[in-house]
């Protein structure tokens, strides 16, 4: 696992939540089942990662999103398996 950077104290793996607001239909499934309460609705009623630093990258949101609207992207610093 990558080392914690002082500038990003709680973000161990640099996890990005790629949410396609055009595809998201606001069902709330990802928000409800997220074990870390990372996600909430934005003003438009679409999913948004409001506490990304709490994300444990379990991918439950991605697996259960019926609209394929959410992707968890892991930016690994020690990325030795680049294509």
């Amino acid at each position, binding site marked *: 696992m990558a080392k914690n950077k002082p500038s990003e104290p709680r973000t161990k793996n640099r996890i990005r939540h790629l949410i396609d607001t*055009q*595809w998201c*239909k*606001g*069902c*709330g*499934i990802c928000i*409800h*089942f997220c074990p870390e309460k990372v996600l909430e609705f934005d003003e438009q009623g679409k999913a948004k990662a409001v506490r990304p630093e709490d994300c444990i990258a379990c991918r*439950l949101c*991605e*697996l*259960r*999103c*019926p*609209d*394929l*609207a959410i*992707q968890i992207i892991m930016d690994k610093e020690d990325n030795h*398996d680049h*294509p």
Partner: protein
Amino acid sequence: MKQKEFNFKDYIRNRYFPHIWCPGCGHGIVLGALLRAVHELGLEKNEIVVTSGIGCSSRISGYVDFHTLHTIHGRALAFATGVKLSKPSLKAIVPMGDGDALAIGGNHFIHAARRNIDITAIVMNNRIYGMTGGQFSPLSGSGKKATTAPYLTIDRAFDIVDLAKSAGATFVARSTVFHATESKDIIKKAITHKGFSVVEILTQCPTYYGRKNKEGDAIQMMEGFNTHTAKIGSKKLENNPNLIQRGIFVEDKTVPEYCEAYDQIIATAMKESL
């Protein structure tokens, strides 16, 4: 060689998204599980043929970037049988609705199982006719509300697992969209299995089944799939044997697969005619 990381955009026809399904419809979770299964098996897109009939569930064939046939209601297995016999090297996958598979298509279903043709049938069971507006299906069960049963249904439901087993399917399993990873793992095994595989996935139609039966929104319906089911062999099931069972019920590798058996007959006939 290290496998590329999964990205569903590699497996879908982007131009048809956002898809047509209602907010919270479980069919999209089945789609996601299927795409992940294909990725993890390392299959090439042109090794797969997805055949479907008509229904909300059947729309799936339009969304996946494999060989696809969007055919007629109830007859997807008949089309898939034809394709498989002519090109046995293809992995044949048939996503179906509960009505599609077991009302109008019940006959095709039992005979595909009896033949043990190498097809993977994924029954997306939302216990209703979603596409046509919420009529009850042979999976609704009694005491349910539907457009065609304002005073409650009186018909009993099929048990897809029991039916598939007794019709001769050689791989039979059940999961739910709450259990998305379990669904994916079961689909992987079903695709790998040589013979007729049936995977029932309980899924929600919040628009009709959920609303009419006051089962709440998609989230509550998914919570229900967690509460009302248990894995075979689990403590939860031992404590409450009336729960709906999940897992793999049949995995029989001893029955000849239909295309292979047919090839043998052809070989015999060729010898005779020499």
